[in-house]
């Protein structure tokens, strides 16, 4: 019945021509265990002739062996899944199923109803335009129905079909139908669900699934299939133009295109666009595809844009309509759905993927958790598996975004664990906490903060001072390794090494020592300006020069570490044999022997190497450095 056999047999070409113009509808089915969801999906597949004879033979066999219908076809068996689940008699994931009719192709996200429900349903709902919510006619609106409806509204699905099932078991009663319908609409209004189509049904017997029920003459609305075939769902395509750059297309020097998918609105050659976050403007020159240039690209189309100016854009940037801009921000309020057995750790550094970019992020303590059954707000310190909460999200750098309610692709994100790389959560951006740059965003000055932002760290100069042989290099090396392991970008400037290069012309006179410190401080300051955490290991015996270095870098970003080893100890260790040489008079102006060392008065970190291992010292310094890191 779904594919008209006569036309196929007579004029396959005409049939195909008509079928190539079908549209696509993605929907999700929600129901509690035993509401009849599998039976309904199985019937939709069966009725649209997607069940082949070999599958049907298996179905007949299985229906007799394990079916619940006394040997009649048990459609539910058509849609079970993984072997392990089959043994346990439950399904534990999102399954995608396909069927098509004369008018449309359908992708159904099928999610089972038990503990893992929230995670699975949120996943399935994220790509759906419509939700079919099943209710057992004998039970009416239950807690589960509320939960399903809440998740549907949370994920921004605008169209709901309320399928009141198993009406054969209540004598196809109109009263039952009417009271459930009324009940549900009252509740759905609170959630802001506007488009609701209620359909009385028996998935088992087939009433109002694909054929109008003769058992319920009082119902004059569409069957489920009619409704799915005709509903209009692409109202979202009318928003402003949004185009995350996925891939920069550069086959040769003459062509520079930006490949991506239109996730909002439409674009035509000549349109004025802005590239965010840089803020550069240009005009669309061509919309390039393999099949030739287009006059227009609309939502969901994957194309390549070229611009009239030679402007820079890279993966993760978003090309948008110049006259209808998204905000650019790095701090947000968001709804977060936690999907991992390891609970969310506020202050842990996660990765967040939004559009085509992946950014370092931390999530604050939840403001509240939402009980999906009662919709109550509860106090919570963290979020566990399947918890939903509202929290602030801090990103390492600003991103262009729209509120999720306005554009799913511009406001939906996933959270990734940095160590396991697992997807541990998902969320929806509400609004920016600081919206300073909202309207008049212009090309940013690329300054220290901007560069540090892309590295996700606070630039710092850690200045290790102390006697020769005090242990500066040992500790500095350890610190660098630890910072590196934590994903920080670092550079170690070692006094001894610098004397082989940039300071090669300097000796050990007081003047040369001062110049030595000055040059090193300048280099360190430049590197900090580039966004790095710079470790300087230098005897730097004079307070004044260390002060000068501090002023050059900026007090906020300067961490002075006094590696304090008494002269006798350093001299007793004398790893490089320098003290012995100095004592013999072979090294004039040796600090501590015949040149002074001025102890720091208020170092940020004071490391006494006789009391502390190098490891412990390094840990203290790392803590201090990251303490001033946001």
């Amino acid at each position, binding site marked *: 019945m779904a594919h008209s056999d006569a036309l196929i047999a007579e004029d396959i070409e005409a049939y195909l021509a008509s079928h190539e113009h079908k549209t696509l509808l993605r929907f999700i089915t929600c129901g509690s265990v035993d509401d009849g969801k599998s039976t309904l999906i199985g019937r939709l597949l069966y009725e649209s002739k997607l069940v082949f004879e070999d599958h049907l033979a298996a179905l007949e066999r299985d229906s007799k062996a394990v079916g619940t219908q006394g040997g009649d076809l048990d459609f539910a068996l058509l849609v079970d899944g993984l072997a392990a689940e089959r043994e346990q008699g439950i399904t534990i994931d999102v399954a995608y199923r396909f069927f098509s009719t004369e008018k449309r192709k359908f992708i159904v996200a099928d999610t089972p109803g038990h503990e893992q429900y929230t995670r699975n349903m949120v996943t399935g709902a994220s790509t759906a335009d419509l939700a079919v919510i099943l209710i057992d006619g004998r039970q009416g609106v239950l807690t589960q129905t509320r939960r399903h409806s809440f998740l549907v509204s949370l994920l921004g699905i605008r169209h709901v079909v309320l399928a009141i099932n198993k009406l054969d078991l209540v004598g196809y009663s109109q009263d039952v139908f009417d009271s459930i319908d009324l009940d549900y609409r009252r509740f759905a209004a609170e959630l802001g669900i506007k488009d609701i189509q209620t359909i009385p049904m028996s998935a088992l017997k087939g009433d109002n699934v694909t054929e109008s029920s003769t058992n319920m003459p009082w119902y004059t609305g569409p069957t489920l299939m009619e409704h799915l075939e005709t509903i209009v769902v692409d109202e979202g395509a009318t928003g402003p133009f949004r185009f995350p750059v996925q891939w920069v297309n550069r*086959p040769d020097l003459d062509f520079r295109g930006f490949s991506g998918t239109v996730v909002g609105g439409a674009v035509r050659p000549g349109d004025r666009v802005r590239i965010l976050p840089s803020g550069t403007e240009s005009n669309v020159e061509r919309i390039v595809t393999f099949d030739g240039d287009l006059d227009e690209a609309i939502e969901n189309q994957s194309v390549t844009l070229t611009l009239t100016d030679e402007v820079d854009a890279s993966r993760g940037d978003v090309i948008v309509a110049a006259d209808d801009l998204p905000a650019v921000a790095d701090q947000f309020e968001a709804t977060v759905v936690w999907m991992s057995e390891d609970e969310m750790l506020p202050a842990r550094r996660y990765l967040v993927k939004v559009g085509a970019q992946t950014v370092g992020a931390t999530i604050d303590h939840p403001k509240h958790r939402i009980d999906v059954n009662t919709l109550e707000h509860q106090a919570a310190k963290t979020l566990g598996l399947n918890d939903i909460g509202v929290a602030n999200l801090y990103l390492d750098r600003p991103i262009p975004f729209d509120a999720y309610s306005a554009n799913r692709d511009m406001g939906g994100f996933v959270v990734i664990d940095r160590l396991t790389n697992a997807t541990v959560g998902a969320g929806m951006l509400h609004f920016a906490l600081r919206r300073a740059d909202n309207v008049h965003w212009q090309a940013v000055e690329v300054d220290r903060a901007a560069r540090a932002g892309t590295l996700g760290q606070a630039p710092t100069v850690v200045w290790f001072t102390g006697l020769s042989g005090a242990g500066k290099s040992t500790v500095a090396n350890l610190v660098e390794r630890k910072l590196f392991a934590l994903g920080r970008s670092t550079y170690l400037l070692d006094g001894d090494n610098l004397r082989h290069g940039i300071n090669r012309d300097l000796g050990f006179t007081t003047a040369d020592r001062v110049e030595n410190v000055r040059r090193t401080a300048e280099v360190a300051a430049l590197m900090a300006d580039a966004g790095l955490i710079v470790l300087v290991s230098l005897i730097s015996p004079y307070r004044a020069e260390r002060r000068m270095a501090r002023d050059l870098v900026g007090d906020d970003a300067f961490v002075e570490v006094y590696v304090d080893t008494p002269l006798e100890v350093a001299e007793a260790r004398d790893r490089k044999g320098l003290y012995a040489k100095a004592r013999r008079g072979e090294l004039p102006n040796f600090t501590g022997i015949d040149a002074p060392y001025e102890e720091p008065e208020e170092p940020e970190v004071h490391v006494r190497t006789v009391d502390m291992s190098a490891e412990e010292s390094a840990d203290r310094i790392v803590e201090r450095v990251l303490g001033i890191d946001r």
Partner: protein
Amino acid sequence: MTTLTHLQRLEAESIHIMREAVSEAERPVMLYSVGKDSSVMLHLAAKAFHPSPPPFPLLHVDTTWKFQDMYAFRDKVAADPRFELIVYQNPEAIERGINPFDHGSGVHTDIWKTEGLKQALDLYKFDLAVGGARRDEEKSRAKERIFSIRSAQHRWDPKRQRPELWRLYNARTSPGESVRTFPLSNWTELDVWQYIHLENIPMVPLYLAAPRPVVERDGMLIMVDDDRFPLAPGEVPEMRKVRFRTLGCYPLTGAVESQADTLLGVIQEMLLTTTSERQGRAIDHDSAGSMEKKKQEGYF
């Protein structure tokens, strides 16, 4: 305002997926099996990166037992300057002369295909492989992710698969892990045929009915494609007009009798037919849930 057709939506989604795959991986590769799904993938890859050539090589994990027509077709693809084709044959399988007749379909597939694929991925250090599997092919595939994570041993662990929301795919891997990406996940067999028709995509002639020499084995019609085929004493292959709905190693691939010698004819038969595509593959019949077991072991 115009709306996209379902094929345009599927095409755009596949292109999006391929672009994500190459952007997130360090060394991506596309698995090329010479079948119709591979032809569609190749076509989509050409579209996804146009005017650049696809930024990944193609990998054919060969078993030496494919149909002659498949090798001829593959070599034509390899001659296309847009594509770089790598052919890999498991040296152990060559040495031991693994074949479906002496070793059975299970061992044959395991050593040539499963092991061969693992070896090739390890050898070239590919961290992401794009494949043509579809969710509608088999019940257990309905839940497969579009970006599917494999352990260092190339095993598929249902517990480690990641939730996929919106158009956001997480392709990050830890050392040793790799990703399989399935851009055709949401296509059905009918979509694939319609698209081949609409876009005029070249495919191996074996999909069209022609008189071919066949013998019957375990209720399947098997084509005698070369003289390695062990005929029973006195057995003579019969010429019958047959075509193939799926292509693999010729001794393991069942033909169907058919008069459909044009693409339209094939689609017509497909729409009026009543058996599923995978029925012709010996490998799926072994046991219930067998595909899933294969997957856990690292079969694509």
